[in-house]
């Protein structure tokens, strides 16, 4: 693939730096992030390749690879990066910016899970584990997935059949509404 490099290409990394404070240009491709990454084997674009793509401003390739959603947020890359780049923060920034690239996402289920998770938190103040599993299973069109895992957990009282409401839920809803307003304003 040949890339014609222009000022335009710098936009992605600059936007990202404005959002997260992390400078992708510092990466010199030592590959420590990829070598330590537990999910690199499942990524089409490895973490060090992601950093390179950011330097080159290849937004579509980055989002098309789905790497940002395969990341498990385990923080190994951050810990080992010799340039002290917070790679997880970079990936989280890309996730925050992903709305306009939703069309490219090969794993749309994963951001769906985050949305359902946060919707439960907003409603009850806590996660409702069984509800979360049921909804995401429906979303993936595999309603009975993991039933062999859930059944003994239900029997042993490890999964609660009904959601539990936190007393702080109301305050939490106000906080989330304020944050939405604040973020919409910028």
């Amino acid at each position, binding site marked *: 693939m040949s890339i014609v490099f222009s000022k335009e290409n710098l936009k992605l990394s600059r936007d990202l730096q404005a*959002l*997260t404070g992390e400078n992708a240009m510092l990466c010199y491709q030592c590959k420590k992030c990829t070598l330590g990454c*537990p*999910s690199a*084997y*499942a990524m089409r674009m490895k973490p060090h390749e992601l950093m390179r793509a950011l330097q080159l401003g290849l937004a579509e390739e980055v989002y098309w690879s789905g790497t940002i959603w*395969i990341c*498990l*947020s*385990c*923080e*190994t890359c*951050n*810990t080992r990066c010799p340039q002290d780049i*917070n790679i997880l923060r970079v990936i*989280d*920034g890309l*996730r*925050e910016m992903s709305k306009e690239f939703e069309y490219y996402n090969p*794993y749309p289920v*994963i*951001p769906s*899970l*985050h*949305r359902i*998770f*946060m919707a439960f*938190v907003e409603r009850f*103040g*806590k*996660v409702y*584990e069984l509800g*979360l599993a049921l909804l*995401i*299973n429906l979303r*993936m069109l595999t309603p009975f*997935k*993991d039933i*062999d*895992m859930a059944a*003994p*957990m239900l029997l*042993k*009282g*490890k*999964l*609660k059949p009904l959601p*539990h409401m*936190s*007393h*702080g*839920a109301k*305050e*939490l809803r106000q*906080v*989330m509404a*304020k*944050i939405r307003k*604040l*973020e919409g304003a910028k």
Partner: protein
Amino acid sequence: MMRFAYFPGCSLSSSGYDYHLSLKYVTKALGIDLVEVKDWVCCGASSAHATSHLLSIALPVLNLSHAEKEGLDQLIAPCLACLSRFKAANVELEHDADLKEKIHQVFDYKYQGKVKVYHPLEVFLEMGLDKIRQRIRKSLKGLKVACYYGCVLTRPPKIAQFDNVEDPQSMDSIVRTLGAETIDWSFKTECCGVSMTLTRSDMVLKLSNDVLREAKEGGANAIAVACPLCQANLDGRQGQIEETYKTRYGIPILYFTQLMGLAFGAYPRELGIQKLITSPRDVLGSIGLM
């Protein structure tokens, strides 16, 4: 009596209830008073920081302010997902004035950053191993334990500020104090993949299988964990893993607090041991504990 604010988090009130029971038992035995944070809400875990950075800081701050308002300046968060979000909130607020400004716009109460956040391991270690040794009624001699620390207990060091980042020893030293043997293995801080447990179960099976296999090859007959998410994965999915990789592990996954409770002479029931999916009956029976 030492007083700590206690943030159980969503997991400890459902799938990790046995962790809650055993932690309560052990802290009581060691003279630690746990005061549950009033009206606590979810910390947002990995879903909040994937959607909005500000939200991922605001949720822990909401809980920390509740503790601060009640005059508690130390907080115990036993779940690693909560722990790492709380610690990150404290560190980032300290170093990022813009973020602090934004957070103060969201809340009426101005959080001062006075609440220090700990994992139970840190608290127990600070109290000293002697204090634990004095409480022991039954030795766990005969157990060979692989201590599994999980992803974010020590990572990243700037935020966790605890133990050796790649080869932690805190849990090993506690488990050895109880009389058990600990194995030396290289998967202590590998990730079990839990954030993908519902969406990419194939990855979780592979990563958790790696952990179980390494522990077994290292000669362990039990794994000790310090996080309800690791436990749910390694224990709850062990059957699926055995089926997928055509192997047999049968390794019980116990919370380190359950091991401490057993050594302190508690009945297994008091520690929620009957709730484990992979039965520890054989292993604990072989050393006369069940």
